[in-house]
């Protein structure tokens, strides 16, 4: 009577065995291809004609040990610029986003201004803004401390990144379903309360992963401020390079950057994956 369940156990174990075999095969392929790739690099690169000289000028252990503490010190400035830029960028980015999604006709001029601002900032490389603002504003003949390139370089960084971040926030705000506003307004909450209590909290939660990606980029772009003067890690590495005629300081700087950006990137990916698990539906098998 119950033919499906009577041959069920044997069918199920056959399927399990098949899945197991397939899984082992994929692991074997992945392992072999990884080992082959690494072996290729390890064997081939040292056979390049000038490997010895590259090794000496990029991977000198002695130079590494000598430069590391100095560069780590210089990196503190990068971290400082990053630390005081982030709150400014998040705050200003949110303000611009809110202005752009506002529906009040009286705010039209501000909306227009924000559109122009975002277009200008996003349309020009960060480096160019740092040059223009960082050299241009102090050039007006301001008194100390208002003529510091460090200050205006940071301002340029904040202005550019605020425009990126405002677009992220805006997409988050627009992604909150209209029915959420309807529910809040139907309960007698004002427009402002609806934004503050219902829309923004949901929007922010939604955009944390892309926001993290922007912050990772910011962490790297802080080094661009070095090009107008401040001695942070990239500049210090350049000084060391010239002094010792060796490129290893740049490698040291790269390693120090990676120590910060890799954990940040992994966290961003993890947050994104978690968000996708929560909202993306059932995953299709490979």
């Amino acid at each position, binding site marked *: 009577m119950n033919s499906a369940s009577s041959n069920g156990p044997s069918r199920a174990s056959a399927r399990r065995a098949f899945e197991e075999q397939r899984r082992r095969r994929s692991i074997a392929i992945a392992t072999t291809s990884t080992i082959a790739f690494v072996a290729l690099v390890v064997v081939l690169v040292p056979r390049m004609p000038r490997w010895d000289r590259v090794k000496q000028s990029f991977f000198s252990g002695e130079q590494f040990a000598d430069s590391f503490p100095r560069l780590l010190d210089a990196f503190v400035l990068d971290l400082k610029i990053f630390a005081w830029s982030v709150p400014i960028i998040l705050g200003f980015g949110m303000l611009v986003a809110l202005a752009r999604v506002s529906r009040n006709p009286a705010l039209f001029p501000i909306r227009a201004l924000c559109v122009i601002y975002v277009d200008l900032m996003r349309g020009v490389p960060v480096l160019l803004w740092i040059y223009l603002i960082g050299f241009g504003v102090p050039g007006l003949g301001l008194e100390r401390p208002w003529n510091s390139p460090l200050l205006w370089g940071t301002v340029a960084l904040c202005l550019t990144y605020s425009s990126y971040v405002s677009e992220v926030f805006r997409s988050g705000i627009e992604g909150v379903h209209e029915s959420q506003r*309807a*529910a809040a307004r*139907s*309960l*007698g*909450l004002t427009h402002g309360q609806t934004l503050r209590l219902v829309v923004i909290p949901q929007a922010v939660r939604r955009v944390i992963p892309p926001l993290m990606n922007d912050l990772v980029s910011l962490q790297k772009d802080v080094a661009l401020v070095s090009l107008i003067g401040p001695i942070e890690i990239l500049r210090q590495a350049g000084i060391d390079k010239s002094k010792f005629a060796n490129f290893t300081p740049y490698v040291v700087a790269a390693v120090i950057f990676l120590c910060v950006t890799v954990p940040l990137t992994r966290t961003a990916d993890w947050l994104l994956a978690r968000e996708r698990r929560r909202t993306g539906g059932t995953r299709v098998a490979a």
Partner: protein
Amino acid sequence: MNAHLSIRGVHKSFGANEVLRGVSLDVPRGNVVAFIGASGSGKSTLLRCINLLEPIDDGEIVLDGTDISAPGFDANVARRDVGLVFQSYNLFPHMNVMRNITLALTHAAGADKSAAESTAMDLLTRFGLADKARTYPEQLSGGQQQRVAIVRAVALKPSVLLLDEVTAALDPQLVGEVLDLIAELRTSGMTMLMATHEMSFAHSIADTVCFLHEGTIHESGTPQQVLDAPREERTRAFLARTNRR
């Protein structure tokens, strides 16, 4: 005329599409009105207009003798008096059940936090949801979410409650618990206007059934008159289509 809620000649268009073409209705206190009609007949729009979620183009909505649709009348105040429950629940997903209910109490109605929480807790207890107070909406069944949404609207002590096809998104076995809650509200004397596809429920609970067709009330009367012995050809055709399903 001493109606609790009077809808007088309400017109509403979206662009060139005239959804409501002069709807008039008087609802005595404690009455339950069921709006039936095909999708697009204007049921939802009418309810959203009464809550002032959609500004009306013409006509007036008079609640206890006050024209709440008058230009310049504070819609936020009027909305606290006219609760609206949606087909898709629209609970706030980032807040637990308690906070969903107390949000408008504390921020719109000016209650302090402890008073709001005790109001919410009383209602949750009354409707068998007390154990869900700290739960988030996504962890609730559709029926539970909709009951919470109704409690959220009722907590503001509105004098009129509008229900917009509140069971339409639910699995059939979850419809009963929501309808029971509505029946219970009726016994407490709440004036209710509901858009519904549940004909047998409309029959048992409504004082008045209105058949909406192309933006007007085509036929209205007691459930016996409209649902059992409709006079209008269109009403008969609509009911015949509905009953066949």
